[in-house]
């Protein structure tokens, strides 16, 4: 499965570790418990804050009566809009790097209630148990007014969001004549596809330990986040702190899936309390409270697709209505992909928002594409049957060799190989085309497939490298590792760039004193931080070479950096590898006890601009259905992913395995059910918000189809954290149809829908 890649084009990168299934370097710390998460920093003299949430959805707070609970010994303070000190209040102070357009929620700022479970107070006490008890007794008088939380009632109130967020691209203008082409085509399909809100639910609950350092406003802020620098800026802007005062640390993150991209309210609460009380404070949210902020939005999607008798797509129209809050316009790319994935001249894509009384939705693993690709890939499956084509054949017939949205060639695209390798492994050629025609005993068997597409991006990131006289290298960056393997990838790239054994390399991250990196998201971290690490190690290498050349009788004198290699702890001349200097000797001779470099890597816009850069996958799924009872099992999945060069096939495979489980979850289980009478999500715990258990997960085969691509970035990395999940839910729904002849277009495919 893992392919060893021929020497990457970049001259200094060795292949000792790059492309190899190296174990996670942070694995031992995680399994022994040495890895500490935000709520585990037991700093001395800690107070505990418990957040109180609004039971109403819209209205205002009339009165908060904190006096009774303040009389309980051990209760320290109750913070609410009534007593919060004057803080920054302008929108821009609350806008974090990931904030969508609009006016961010300002915790404890005003008595108005805008969504159910809005945090309205923080009760601080000497123990967690006491804080929780006191919080349960806090009397708050509300005045509720009417609310609307149901997107179904907002079908006529859609609007086009402005381009208020730089990372969001509005759908391209229509091309060709989609309406007419649809009318004329012999095979047409139109349907609506729906899923409700879904909550990210990472295993680690949100928490912040704000350690007061006894010195003015200086704090160590241990936060659960996907981006310490983003949290730092947010805190600095609201509380008027300096970088030194707002030191944010997030070395380990127990999953995020997008929920940690934006700072959440617990960090505001913990910092507020710590500064006001001049005391260390921890605020952790409960699982129920994890439903009090963002989510993947409830979305209604209409697909109109048509093909001619040869199976060629004639028209593709994809229109969506997605929820957002009253105060921000959350945007994600839902429909754009539909214009890229297939060859079709007549395309209309439309994306609208409607405001309801919920908290602003947020990015959740493969935001936008997850919803869009589900609808698109189910619709195309339906059309393939109407056009009398095998679903795979149908996709190959309409394969896009260029990106018709942007009218650009792809920097690389091995989706065709994904189709072929995936189909071969799965045995797709043995599929009987007719629904309900395959059986295993009393069970109906269904085979379905689908495709996924995701962006390949590199973002600007910085890193630092420090080499000691003993030959120990530390590479560091303020990036985050949400379980994706960033630590390991950093160490692998550093070790190969400077020719050191992995055991001599240490990766450090998740700390705002380190060089800045963007939030860990969009599957761009391996590329962005990987490039920063390589760049800084090369800078360090140049310094080493200069020092080596200053040594007595140096064999490397006069040789350019381009003409040396770093291998086995040595610097060697390319044309004569007997000319070597040991790296340890360089430092010893220089008299320095360490050598350092810092560098920033930015994407090469000029090189990238002419190309469209994407990762793809093809998913093949087998389901077995007990028709009488409606129960469905996903018995087999083959997921072939083309995501550039794979730095570490082991961690990459883990990402794809997790993606498949995530896809099974989206297809069969996940749904945050809102009781619109209350405007409140009701299944707000993991007993009732279902995600798969082991018994729901069967055979999963991962195929990594490697791509050579030095346009995306010199390392050729596209990122794999999200693309592997795309297509899975659609493939399962398609397989369910093939098994039963029933189309379920409203996720999840639960047993009642198959009865």
């Amino acid at each position, binding site marked *: 499965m893992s392919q060893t890649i021929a020497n990457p084009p970049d001259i200094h990168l060795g292949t000792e570790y790059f492309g190899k299934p190296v174990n996670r370097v942070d694995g031992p710390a995680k399994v022994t418990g040495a890895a500490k998460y935000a709520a585990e920093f037991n700093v001395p003299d800690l107070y505990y804050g418990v957040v109180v*949430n609004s*039971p109403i959805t819209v209205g205002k707070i009339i009165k908060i009566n904190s006096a009774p609970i303040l009389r309980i010994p051990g209760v320290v303070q109750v913070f609410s809009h009534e007593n919060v000190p004057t803080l920054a209040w302008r929108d821009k102070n609350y806008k974090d790097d990931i904030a969508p357009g609009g006016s961010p929620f300002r915790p404890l700022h005003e008595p108005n209630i805008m969504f159910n479970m809005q945090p309205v107070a923080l009760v601080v006490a000497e123990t967690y*148990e006491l804080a*929780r*008890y006191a919080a*349960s007794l806090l009397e708050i008088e509300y005045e509720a007014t009417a609310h609307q939380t149901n997107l179904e009632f907002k079908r006529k109130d859609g609007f086009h969001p402005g381009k208020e967020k730089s990372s969001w691209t509005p759908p391209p203008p229509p091309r060709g004549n989609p309406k007419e082409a649809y009318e004329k085509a012999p095979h047409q399909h139109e349907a609506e596809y729906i899923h409700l809100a879904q909550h990210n639910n990472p295993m680690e609950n949100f928490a912040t330990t704000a350690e007061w350092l006894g010195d003015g406003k200086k704090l160590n802020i241990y936060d659960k986040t996907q981006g310490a620098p983003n949290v730092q800026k947010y805190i600095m802007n609201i509380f008027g702190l300096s970088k030194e005062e707002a030191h944010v640390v997030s070395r380990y993150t127990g999953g995020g899936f997008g929920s940690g991209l934006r700072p959440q309210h617990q960090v505001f609460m913990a910092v507020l309390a710590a500064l006001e009380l001049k005391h260390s404070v921890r605020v952790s949210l409960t699982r*129920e409270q994890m439903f009090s902020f963002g989510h993947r939005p409830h979305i209604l999607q209409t697909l109109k697709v048509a093909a001619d008798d040869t199976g060629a797509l004639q028209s593709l129209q994809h229109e969506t209505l997605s929820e957002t809050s009253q105060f921000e316009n959350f945007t994600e790319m839902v429909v754009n992909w539909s214009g890229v994935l297939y060859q079709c001249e007549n395309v209309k894509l439309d994306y609208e928002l409607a405001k309801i009384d919920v908290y602003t939705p947020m990015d959740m693993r493969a935001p936008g594409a997850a919803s869009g690709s589900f609808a698109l890939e189910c619709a195309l499956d339906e059309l393939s049957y109407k056009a009398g084509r095998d679903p795979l054949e149908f996709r190959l017939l309409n394969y896009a060799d260029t990106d018709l949205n942007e009218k650009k060639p792809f920097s690389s695209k091995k989706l065709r190989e994904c189709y072929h390798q995936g189909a071969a492994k799965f045995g797709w050629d043995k599929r009987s085309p007719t629904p309900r025609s395959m059986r295993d*005993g*009393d*069970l109906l068997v269904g085979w379905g497939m689908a495709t996924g597409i995701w962006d390949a991006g590199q973002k600007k990131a910085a890193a630092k490298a420090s080499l000691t006289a003993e030959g120990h290298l530390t590479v560091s960056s303020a990036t985050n590792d949400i379980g994706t393997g960033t630590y390991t990838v950093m160490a692998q790239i550093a070790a190969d760039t400077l020719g050191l054994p992995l055991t001599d390399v240490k990766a450090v991250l998740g700390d705002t004193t380190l060089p800045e990196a963007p939030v860990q998201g969009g599957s761009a971290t391996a590329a962005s931080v990987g490039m920063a690490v390589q760049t800084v190690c090369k800078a360090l290498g140049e310094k080493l070479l200069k020092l080596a050349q200053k040594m007595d009788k140096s064999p490397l004198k006069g040789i350019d950096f381009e003409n040396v290699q770093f291998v086995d702890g040595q610097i060697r001349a390319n044309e004569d590898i007997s000319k070597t200097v040991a790296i340890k000797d360089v430092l010893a001779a220089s008299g320095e006890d360490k050598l350092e470099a810092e560098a920033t890597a930015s994407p090469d816009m000029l090189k990238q601009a002419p190309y469209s850069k994407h990762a793809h996958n093809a998913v093949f799924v087998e389901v*077995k259905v*007990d028709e*009488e*009872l*409606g*129960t469905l*099992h996903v*018995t087999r999945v083959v997921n072939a992913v083309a995501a550039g060069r794979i730095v570490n096939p082991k961690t990459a495979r883990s990402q794809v395995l997790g993606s498949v489980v995530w896809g099974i979850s989206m297809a*069969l*289980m996940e749904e945050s*059910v809102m*009781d619109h*009478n*209350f405007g*409140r999500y*009701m*299944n*707000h*715990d993991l*007993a*009732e918000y*279902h*995600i*798969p*258990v*082991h*018994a*729901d997960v*069967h055979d999963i085969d991962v195929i990594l189809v490697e791509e050579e691509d030095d346009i995306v970035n010199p390392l050729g990395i596209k990122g794999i954290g999200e693309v592997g999940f795309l297509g899975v839910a659609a493939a399962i729904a398609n397989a369910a149809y093939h098994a039963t002849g029933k189309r379920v277009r409203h996720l999840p495919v*639960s*047993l*009642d829908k198959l*009865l």
Partner: protein
Amino acid sequence: MNSFTLTKATTVEAAVNDNAAHYGSAYLGGGTNLIDLMKGNIERPTHLIGLNKLPLHQIENLPDGGLRLGALATNADTAYHPEVQARYPLLSQGILAGASAQLRNMATDAGNLLQRTRCYYFYDTATPCNKREPGSGCSAIAGFNRIHAILGQSESCIATHPSDMAVPLAALEAVVQVSGPDGTRSIKFADFHRLPGDTPELDNNLQRGELITSIDLPKKGFEKHYTYLKLRDRTSYAFALVSVAAALELDGDTIVEGRLALGGVAHKPWRDQDAEALLKGQPATVDTFRRVAAKVVQGAKGYSSNTFKIELAKRAIVRALKQATEMNYPTDTNAFLNSNP
């Protein structure tokens, strides 16, 4: 969670006396339900009486040929007990279809019977609920009611009893032994749990302060023909949407006696003796089973999100009886059989 005191009783008498002496006290078994409810402020006992030191952990044979499950025997120990596996495999299957291995290691048999409903609103103090706060209203009737009752519900509550273990116990006609301030008594399983009526705050017919000491199984275990079929939203670690405990005694193809109890459909494990009567003396065929199934759901009523359960229950009954007759469960390694984890 409010503050509370905790004592650990070593005799049944001491436990009962301690309870009588403290207003607002509760017995603590494995704590897997009670402690969660306390954390969520749904239950607010001021005094807990730990039961773990009571000599009620054994599983032992009774002189009349039955089996006594000590109140404190864990769900795991019960399910894997050789006597239970050999003589009451239906019960073993039922227990193992519930919760997770970790929970079953902690959960006690008595606690399992007394676990409270999983109604979303019951667990969320921000919403009205007659069971939690009598008179406040039932949010589920006009709300989200996927896991709610279709049989025996009332205008004041449509909650279900969530226990799996209780369903085979109902089918097997277990007897619950209790000790209370007024002495000991035996309660037939059918009379143990109750329907909500106007007092949904009461889940069962225990009197205040009564302690369960054991659950007694009668001799007849239906060990030859049985099935516990559980249908749920994922393969393990989820409560039943519908579950069926079916037990048959066959003479050739003729049913001598049949028992049937349903979980996930009512405020108590649902047994319909009129429907069971339709099994007696009949051939063990799908036709017979369909008639029985139709009888069970006669008068069933669904709500916005659970009407599907009526049809599901019918099909599940037929399937369970069929499986019990044939005893040829699918052996698919992919755990297709929905009753086992």
